[in-house]
Structures are given as structure tokens and as C-alpha cells.
């Protein structure tokens, strides 16, 4: 999320409710890029993602007067986006099976419930035999590079859809666990398992890149 050091969402929402166009513009600028990135994960083209974002803000305007802030604006906004994007994704034959969630606590539906680190890296006693290197000494500032961010994005792109959405909302968009759970109707455990598997794969991708 862009780190505008400015007004908090709730006060901007209240100003927008009173007809303040500038306040609304700040909200639109603050969230639309992230909404677009997320929408793109549900629909096959950028143009469709743009439609979804547009529909989302129209829905926000329709509900704005009634919005009381019982959940955060962010939760409300992302929830609308995800619902619109899912509907559109189904229509375009590319849907994320969030509907199949809720059966059991793990991410096994993705055919993906094994260990997150290659078991070959541990001995029979469970101790590391091929240990992770320390990244604290990163003299070339590799992790601060554009290339590192590209590696992470590439890794995220190859994740199963639900892991992709969860890690993007949590670690790229900076939503809290509660906000993500409410936006996606996920249980606490499910959210955490999806996040865990996603993060582990992204870490592995960075490690492979650094150690190459």
C-alpha cells in the first residue's frame, strides 16, 4: 500500500460521505492500484480487472451512506472487490474455488500438503544437513534490488490461486490477518496455512536465487 502519511481511512470515508471529493480521491488513489493487482488474479485480462475495480467503486458509492465502520473500510472494500472479481472470473471461466474452502484446516485441495522445506536438507535426527545461509550479511544489498522483487513476484505468480491471493493481500498489500479472513471468508487456520505455504515457496525462490 502506498504509504501516504495522511488521513486515516475512517475520517476520509466520513468526509466523502459528506460529499468531499478530495477525500474520496485520496481513497481511490490509495487503494485502486492494489485492487487492480488483486482483481487481475481472478480474471484473464487487464481490461476485465479494470472493469472489476470500476464496479467495486460504484458499489462503494452505493453503500457509502450506509457504511458505519463496523468493519474497517479496507475489509469492506476488498470484500466487495473479491466478490465482484469472483463473479466476473466465473463468467469468464476462470474462477478460484474459494467455495470449496472450509473442508479441513489444510491446503490439501491444492495437492500441496507436504513439507515446505525439502526433507533432503535434514538428517535422520531432524537436524539441518544443508543449512540455510545467513542473509544478514548481504553486502551487495541483493535483497534491496529490483531483481529480488521480481523473483518474489515470479514465485507468487506460480502459486496455487488461493495462496497467491492470501500472500498478496497480507504481505504485499499489508492487510491484517483479520482483514484477509473477513474479505475472503476464511477461517483463521486456513488463512494461516495458505500463508505459510505461500511464504515458504517465496523464501525458497529467493534462496535459490541468492545461492545460485
Amino acid at each position: 500500500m502506498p504509504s501516504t502519511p495522511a488521513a486515516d481511512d475512517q475520517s476520509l470515508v466520513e468526509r466523502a460521505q459528506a460529499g468531499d471529493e478530495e477525500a474520496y480521491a485520496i481513497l481511490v488513489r490509495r487503494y485502486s492500484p492494489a485492487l487492480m493487482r488483486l482483481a487481475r488474479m481472478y480474471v484473464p485480462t487487464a481490461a476485465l480487472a479494470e472493469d472489476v475495480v470500476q464496479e467495486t467503486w460504484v458499489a462503494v458509492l452505493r453503500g457509502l451512506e450506509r457504511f458505519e465502520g463496523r468493519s474497517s473500510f479496507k475489509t469492506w472494500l476488498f470484500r466487495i472487490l473479491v466478490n465482484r472479481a469472483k463473479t466476473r472470473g466465473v463468467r469468464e471461466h476462470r474462477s478460484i474455488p474459494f467455495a470449496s474452502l472450509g473442508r479441513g484446516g489444510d491446503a490439501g485441495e491444492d495437492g500441496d500438503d507436504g513439507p515446505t522445506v525439502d526433507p533432503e536438507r535434514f538428517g535422520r535426527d531432524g537436524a539441518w544437513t544443508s543449512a540455510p545461509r545467513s542473509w544478514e550479511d548481504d553486502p551487495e544489498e541483493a535483497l534491496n534490488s529490483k531483481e529480488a522483487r521480481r523473483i518474489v513476484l515470479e514465485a507468487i505468480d506460480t502459486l496455487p490461486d488461493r495462496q497467491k491471493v492470501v500472500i498478496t493481500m497480507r504481505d504485499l498489500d499489508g492487510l491484517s490477518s483479520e482483514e484477509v479472513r473477513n474479505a475472503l471468508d476464511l477461517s483463521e487456520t486456513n488463512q494461516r496455512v495458505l500463508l505459510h505455504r505461500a511464504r515458504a515457496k517465496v523464501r525458497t525462490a529467493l534462496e535459490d536465487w541468492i545461492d545460485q
Partner: protein
Amino acid sequence: MVELVTDYLEGALTPPDRARFEAHIAGCAHCRAYLEQMRMTLQVAGHIEPDELDPDTERGLLDAFKDWKAGGA
């Protein structure tokens, strides 16, 4: 430990499990490195900004507010 790292970072371990986790980490440099790698991974991810909005798209989104204000939306 590698399968508990997210539970740990999310504050989802019970106090005794958390204590055991921290005791292990204190004595195991490799696991400490793994945890640190995970933290740095999150840091890299946190610096990935979405693409900026196309100005035409932004204008469209803002125009909708004027319609709404005029009672049209």
C-alpha cells in the same frame, strides 16, 4: 521448526509452544538463519508496489463520485 515459523510470526503458538520455539531458536543457528530469511522475505514482499493507475481510469473512477453526489449513482 520450519513448519511452525508462520504460526510463530503470526503469534498463533500457545505460550508453552512459543517458549519451546524460542528456546530452540536460541540454541540453533541454522533455524535462526531460516527465521531471519523468512523475515527478510517478508520485507522484500512488502516493498513490491502495485503498478500505478492509468490516469484515464483514475479520472473515470473520480467522475463516478460527481454522479453520486448529484444523486445519479
